[in-house]
C-alpha cells in the first residue's frame, strides 16, 4: 500500500443562509485546494464528494457530476458518498484507499451542505432520516432525542447525578465556543457561559439548545496525492496513516454496548492499528460533538479517558489547547458549525492546520502537534476515523 498525502486545502466560511449554491460553494473551496497544491483542475484524476441532503435542500441529485464539471475537472470520474454526518469523512477514506492502492495519483475530496436552506422543521425531519425510518422514527425519534436518550442512559449507567452530568456537558459547549470565537471560519463566533447553556431552550430533556450544534451551510476540500507526486510539488504534506469505518444497526439494537457505540470502537481500533499508534500518541483530536454529551461518549471510546470520566476531564481543562489531549480546538461542530457533508473534510482541514503549525496566529496552536485524529459519526451507527501525521 502506498503512502497518501494531504496537499492543499480549502474551507468556506461556515454560516447560516449562504448566498452560494452547493456547486458554487464546492467549486470555490476545491479551487483553493487545487491551486494551493500547485496544481490545476486538469490534474485531478477523480473526485470524491460528501453530500447528504442536497437532493432535498436544492432538489439536486448527482451533485458530483455538476460540481466537477463546474470547477473545470471536465469529464472525470466523480462519486458522491452519503453517510449522514460522516459523509465527508467517508469520502476522504474512499479517496485514500484509491490513492493507496495505486489506482489514482491525485484526487480531490470535497464536502458540501446547505442545511439552513431547509429551515429548522424540515432540517429536523431530514436529519432524522439517518435514524431507523420504520421502527424508530414513528416514535418521534430525532437526533437531539437520540443523544438525549444516550445522556440519560449515560447518567444511569455510570451512576452520575443528572445535575452533575449537565454541568459537565455545559463545560463541553463553553470550551467549544471559547475556541470557536477565535476561528474566523466558525459559524457561531461568540463565547458562552455554563449559565447560558443551562438557561437555554430545552430541546429534548436533558439536551438544551446550547448542548446542540447548529444547522450550517458550508464546504471544505482537500487534495490527496501519492508520495511521489507530493514530494515533487508540495513542501508541507501531511500523511493519512490510518483509516477506519464501521457501522451498527438501529439504536435500540445496540443494547449490549450503549451508551458506548461499538462501531466507533471498532473503527478507531482499525485506524490506530493501521497507523501503528494508540490513543496516547494522539496530540490533537477533532471529534464529533453534534451534542455536548456526544463528546463525552466519543472521547472515552477513542481511548482518551476511562468510561464515565470524560466530563470531569473537560471540567479540569484536560481537553484544552495545552491540556492532556486537546479536543475540538477549531470550535468543534458546536461553534464552528456542522454542514454535514463537509464536516469530516473540515475536521481534516483543521487537523492538518495543527500539524503544519498554522494555527499560531489565531492562538489555537497545539504546540508540537505531530499526530492528529478525526472522529466522525453519521446517523446512529456509521463511524469513520482518520489518523493524520506530519
Amino acid at each position, binding site marked *: 500500500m502506498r503512502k497518501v498525502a494531504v496537499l492543499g486545502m480549502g474551507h468556506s466560511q461556515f454560516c447560516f443562509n449562504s448566498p452560494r449554491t452547493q456547486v458554487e460553494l464546492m467549486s470555490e473551496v476545491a479551487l483553493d485546494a487545487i491551486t494551493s497544491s500547485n496544481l490545476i483542475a486538469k490534474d485531478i484524476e477523480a473526485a470524491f464528494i460528501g453530500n447528504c441532503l442536497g437532493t432535498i435542500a436544492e432538489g439536486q441529485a448527482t451533485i458530483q457530476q455538476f460540481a466537477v464539471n463546474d470547477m473545470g475537472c471536465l469529464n472525470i470520474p466523480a462519486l458522491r458518498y452519503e453517510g449522514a454526518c460522516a459523509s465527508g469523512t467517508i469520502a476522504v477514506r474512499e479517496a485514500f484507499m484509491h490513492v493507496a492502492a495505486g489506482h489514482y495519483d491525485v484526487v480531490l475530496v470535497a464536502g458540501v451542505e446547505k442545511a439552513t436552506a431547509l429551515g429548522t*422543521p424540515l432540517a429536523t425531519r431530514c436529519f432524522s432520516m439517518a435514524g431507523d425510518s420504520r421502527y424508530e422514527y414513528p*416514535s418521534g425519534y430525532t437526533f437531539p432525542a437520540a443523544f438525549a*436518550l444516550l445522556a440519560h442512559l449515560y447518567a444511569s449507567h455510570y451512576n452520575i447525578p443528572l445535575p452533575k452530568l449537565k454541568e459537565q456537558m455545559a463545560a463541553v459547549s463553553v470550551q467549544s465556543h471559547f475556541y470557536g470565537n477565535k476561528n474566523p471560519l466558525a459559524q457561531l463566533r461568540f463565547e458562552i457561559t455554563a449559565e447560558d447553556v443551562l438557561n437555554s431552550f430545552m*430541546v429534548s*430533556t436533558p439536551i438544551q439548545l446550547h448542548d446542540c450544534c447548529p444547522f450550517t451551510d458550508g464546504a471544505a476540500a482537500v487534495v490527496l496525492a501519492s508520495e511521489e507526486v507530493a514530494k515533487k510539488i508540495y513542501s508541507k504534506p501531511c500523511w493519512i496513516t490510518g483509516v477506519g469505518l464501521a457501522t451498527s*444497526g438501529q439504536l435500540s439494537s445496540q443494547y449490549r454496548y450503549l451508551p458506548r457505540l461499538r462501531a466507533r470502537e471498532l473503527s478507531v481500533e482499525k485506524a490506530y492499528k493501521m497507523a501503528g499508534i494508540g490513543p496516547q500518541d494522539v496530540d490533537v483530536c477533532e471529534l464529533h460533538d453534534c451534542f455536548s454529551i456526544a463528546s463525552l461518549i466519543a472521547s472515552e471510546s477513542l481511548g482518551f479517558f476511562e468510561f464515565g470520566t470524560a466530563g470531569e476531564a473537560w471540567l479540569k481543562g484536560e481537553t484544552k489547547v495545552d491540556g492532556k489531549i486537546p479536543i475540538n480546538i477549531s470550535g468543534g461542530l458546536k461553534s464552528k458549525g456542522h454542514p454535514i457533508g463537509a464536516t469530516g473534510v473540515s475536521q481534516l482541514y483543521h487537523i492538518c492546520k495543527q500539524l503544519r503549525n498554522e494555527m499560531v496566529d489565531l492562538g489555537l496552536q497545539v504546540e508540537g502537534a505531530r499526530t492528529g485524529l478525526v472522529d466522525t459519526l453519521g446517523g446512529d451507527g456509521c463511524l469513520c476515523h482518520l489518523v493524520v501525521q506530519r
Partner: protein
Amino acid sequence: MDYKLPFKEYNRALRKSRLLGLRCNSCGAITCPPKMSCQECTGLDLEVTELSGKGSIVTYTTSFGAPQGRENELPYTIVIVQLDEGPWIMGNLIDMETDKITFDIIGRRVKMGSRVYPGDVYSAGASARPVFSFDDQI
C-alpha cells in the same frame, strides 16, 4: 431467501397492540424489531413468536422540538424499554404528563399498547408505534 417477519406483518400485529419478534433456533435469543438475521448470533433459523410487550424503561427523553409535520404531537416522551424477553425497543410513554416526568422513571415497569404514526411524504405510508404505560404501583 424469504424475510421471516417483514415490516408489513409486524406492523399489522402492532396496530392491534400485539408485539411480534423472532426466536432464534440456534442461540435462543429474541430479535425485535425484526431483522433478516438473529441480532445476537446472525443465525437464519428464526421463528415468529409473540412477545409480552412488558418490560422496564432504560432511558427516556421529552422532546419540545419536532420534525416538520409533527409539531402537533409536542411535547412527547420517547422511551427505550428493555422487554422481559431481552431486546430493547423504542416507543412513547403516554400515561404521565410530560412535565411530571423525571429521571426516576428509569427502571419502572411498563406495558405496551400502540398508536399509529400516519406518515408523511417521505415515509412510504403509515407505521404503528409502541406506546407504553406504567405497569406498577408507586
